[in-house]
Structures are given as C-alpha cells and as structure tokens.
C-alpha cells in the first residue's frame, strides 16, 4: 500500500491537500460584502460569520479560535480578513500570520463604512492572492502528515456495522503512520463512554471524557428534552436506530482502536500526533466546522441514508454502506461500502480501497461535495450575546 500523497508544503511545515485563498468576514456586518467578493473572484473560498461584538466569554473565545483556525488551516494558501473595527480584525489576522502565509486585513473603519469600497479593494486583494497562490506546486509527502476529522451524519444501522468501523480502520492506519485524527459529537459518546475511557492514555483524559458526556446528558435533562426524536432523530429512528446508546456504540467505531490522547475544546488545535476527542455539538455543520478549524485537512464522513453537508476548506469524503442509499446517491457518496453490508466483500478489502481513495483525494481528486460546491464552514454558538 502506497502511503504517500502529493500535497502543498507550507511555510510552517504543515501540508495542504488544497490550495485555497480564503476571503473571511469575521464580523456579521461585513459578511454580505465578503460573499460579493467571493462571487467576483470565483476561485476564492468564503467564510462569513453572522456574529460580532455582542459575543463574550467562551463564545467570544470560540469565535476567535475557530476563525483563526480556518485562516491558519494548511489547505489555505492566503487569507483576506474583513471586519468592522481594527483591533478585532488585526487580532485575527495576526493569529493567522503566525503560520507565515500571506494575510491582509480590510476594515470598514478604513473604508468610510462603504461596502462598495470594501468590495473594490477586497476584490483586487483576493485576485492577487489567487494568482500568487496558483504558483504553488504539490510535492510528495507522507500519509503521517495528514490530520483527519471523522464525522457521521444521518446514521443508520449500516453505519455502526460497516461504514464507521471502515473509517476507524483508516484512523488506526493513520495513527500508526504518525498522523493525527479527531472526532467529536459528544452526545454520541453517551452510552459508550466507558469504552472510550478505557482507551484514555491517562486518568485525567478518562475523567475529561466522563465529564464531557455528563455535561451534555445533564443539559438535555435540565432542558426537559427527550433524546428520542432528537438524537436519535426521526431519520435515524425510521432507519432502525432505537436509542442514543445504540447510536453511540455504532458512532464510536469511527474512531478505530487507537489510544485516546486527550479531549480538546471545539476548534482547539490538536497538541500532537495520535487520536483526540473534541467535546463538541453533534449537528454536522457545527461538528465539522470545529474539526476543520482545529486543523483537519480531510474529513471522513460516514452516512447511512445520505447527508450532503461538507466542509468548504477540507475535502469531505462521504462513505456509505447502505445499499439502498448507495444506489440512489451516486453524486453524493464518494465511497460505496455497501458490498461489505451485502456480504460480498470484507472490511479489510474495503479499508485498502478507501485508503487508496483518501490518498487520491489528498493529492487533488475532487470529492462530490467539491464538484457541487456544497461546502460551508461555520462556528458554533454556545450562549446568549449582549
């Protein structure tokens, strides 16, 4: 098995599997302008938050951490940061500039609060960045330079039986090669947390896992929510999943068997190689956003009945083992594992083929989500704003 791919080596030593120019609005006031610049420079990727100065506490910290994470991301060659006032925009631009990549900041205050002026200047900056970025060339790099995020969405019983164990086998191979992997969706550890705790590298990690699950479980009890109908949701239930425990036990298979080195917060960079958990919401856009902001260059996304959401920054490989969905969603699913579910192929054989596809996508082959431009990158909100 070839364990190399062709990637973009960045100034800070990280490796991009894509070469995006990011046009990022860090305040809600400037987001329509960022999207207009994105339309004017179609090769650029846009990230646009609807939020701004009312955020405080952990929400404010999360916005900064996640937006800086998107900008610093190895798949981003250069970033244009757009916002309302200088200190905040400067702070995020500086946090991105640490990576050594070109960063420019554009502030409403410096453009007489005229969106058309911001559009004009931003379009020129993004155009220049895109041309300059196109000079980068791919070189041969090791599988171990990858960090992958693992996600499951619209799961069904085929997810826990085939698609998640398949993703888990890739995680095991990646971790053995010195790479990094991370998965979140804390509520989907509920009922399986004892198995995750057993894999923790030390007692403090086991305690962090237990505390994270307890916080979510209590939150749902305090809110008076019945998890049935929410998680598992109506689609999960129709497909045959009955309880959160059943869903969780299938969901954690996507993390393979590697030791769990720590629990990180949403969008927090992984401190080193190996497998990490992210204490994060389960809804796919929020979950994937956190994984990508933490530095995942690729996402393995398993689904049972289909789920079209992908990251815009990190190519997202859709894996499905449900034969009915696989037959229906030909332009959504990148890897059809239904032969394993139908007992026509082994998990080991499918793992080798998925790893081949992973390296191929890392080297530039487009996912369906990229072809159809489904990508979006968002940041969770945790509490009220001022």
């Amino acid at each position: 098995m070839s364990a190399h791919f062709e990637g973009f080596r960045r100034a800070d030593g990280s490796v991009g599997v894509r070469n995006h120019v990011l046009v990022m609005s860090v305040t809600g006031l400037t987001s329509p302008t960022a999207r207009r610049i994105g339309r004017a420079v179609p090769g650029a990727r846009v990230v646009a938050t609807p939020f701004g100065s009312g955020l405080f506490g952990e929400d404010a910290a999360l916005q900064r951490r996640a937006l800086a994470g998107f900008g610093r991301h190895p798949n981003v060659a250069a970033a244009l940061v757009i916002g309302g006032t200088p200190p905040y925009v400067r702070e995020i631009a500086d946090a991105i500039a640490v990576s050594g990549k070109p960063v420019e900041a554009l502030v409403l205050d410096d453009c007489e609060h005229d969106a058309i002026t911001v559009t004009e200047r931003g379009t020129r900056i993004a155009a220049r960045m895109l041309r300059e970025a196109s000079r980068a060339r791919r070189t041969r790099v090791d599988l171990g330079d990858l960090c992958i995020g693992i996600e499951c969405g619209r799961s069904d019983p085929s997810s826990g039986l085939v698609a998640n164990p398949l993703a888990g086998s890739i995680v095991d191979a990646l971790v053995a090669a010195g790479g990094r992997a991370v998965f979140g969706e804390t509520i989907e550890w509920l009922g399986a947390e004892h198995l995750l705790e057993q894999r923790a590298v030390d007692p403090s990690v086991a305690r962090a896992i237990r505390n994270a699950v307890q916080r979510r479980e209590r939150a749902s009890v305090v809110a008076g929510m019945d998890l049935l109908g929410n998680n598992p949701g109506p689609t999960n239930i129709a497909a045959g999943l009955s309880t959160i425990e059943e869903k969780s036990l299938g969901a954690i298979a996507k993390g393979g068997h590697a030791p769990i080195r720590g629990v990180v917060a949403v969008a927090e960079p992984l401190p080193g190689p190996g497998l990490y958990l992210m204490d994060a919401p389960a809804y796919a856009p929020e979950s994937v956003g956190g994984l990508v902001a933490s530095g995942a260059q690729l996402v393995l996304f398993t689904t049972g009945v289909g789920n079209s959401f992908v990251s815009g920054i990190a190519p997202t490989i859709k894996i499905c083992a449900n034969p009915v969905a696989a037959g229906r969603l030909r332009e959504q699913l990148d890897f059809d594992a239904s032969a394993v579910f139908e007992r026509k192929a082994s998990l080991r054989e499918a793992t080798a083929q998925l790893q081949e596809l992973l390296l191929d996508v890392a080297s530039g082959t487009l996912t369906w989500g990229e072809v159809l431009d489904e990508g979006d990158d968002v940041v969770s909100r945790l509490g009220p704003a001022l």
Partner: protein
Amino acid sequence: MTAKAPLQGRAGTERSEPNAPDHASWQATALSPNDNVAIALEPVAAGQDVVVSMSDRTLTITSLEPLGLGHKIALVDLRPGDALIKYGECIGEATTSITRGAWVHVHNLTSRRARQDGATTSAFDAHAYMRAAATALELSIPAASQATVAANLTRLHALAQEVLSFEIPQHSSGSDRDSQEVERQ
C-alpha cells in the same frame, strides 16, 4: 500503487478475498456472542426463517413480523426491564415482554440514559420551593409568572448540583481539558 484509484470508490467490485463470505447464506448478523438482538441485513417477511451469523455460531430464528433493512430482531424471550444487548453492550431496556423473533424498536425498547426520572437529577419540587420561599420572603408571585419562575428554579437547582458534584482536578496535567482552559486565559 499500480493502477489509479477508482474515481467512484466502491468496495469489492473486482477483487474478492479467498475467504470472501457467501452473501446468500445469512440474512442477519450480531457482532458479539452476548448479543440478544441481531440486525437484518435485508428486508425480512413475517414468518420467514432468518439465518443469523454471530461471531461464534449461526442460528435460525423465525421472524414474527416484517423487518426493514437494518432493524433488530430478538434472539431470545425478554421481560420488561431486561437489558437489550448489541455490540456486546447495553443499548437500553425492554418496556414490554418481547418474544424471540419479534421486531425490537422504539415501541418495546427504551434508553436508560438522559432520563427525566433518572439518577442524573434528584427529586426537586420547584413549585413547593417557590411557595416556601415566597412565604419566607413575603413575596407575591403573579400566577402568570409562576411557571417561568419554577422552570428557572429547576435550572438553578440542576446547575447547583453540577457545581457541587464537580470533581476539582488534584494537579495540573497537559492532557486535561479543564486545566488547559485555565492555562489559556
């Protein structure tokens, strides 16, 4: 790598391992020998004899009901309160008697977690607390506000419980999330 990876990845279309399973020989599977439910790998009709592949044995169960692909069939008779085992782990408990061969789903199986009546909350009567507090403080709480006040008291009570039960880490460790949060400030 001798050939380019397939653009549309698909497992097992061309090659097959020497011990590749014969797909026609079983219709349901259970991953652990301790499981008391199996997953249907294809739609099953009522009255159909279903061959179940388990890690250590194969057994045949007559299905009492039609089953959709991915749905669960009981491998043994179960009583209310019995644990349902899948992946060798508890996925919840039976809410009714379940007969071997029956369909197992939300109509006869419920979660043991995140329950309103579960061990994660203690009995707290917010209305009784509100009445007692209002009397002690000589407050008059309008009838229209009482539901909101009670709901807020319930939240506060749960929060207080969480604070009281919080285990303060004994010493700082690089891999502990809570201590990292503090270090970042």
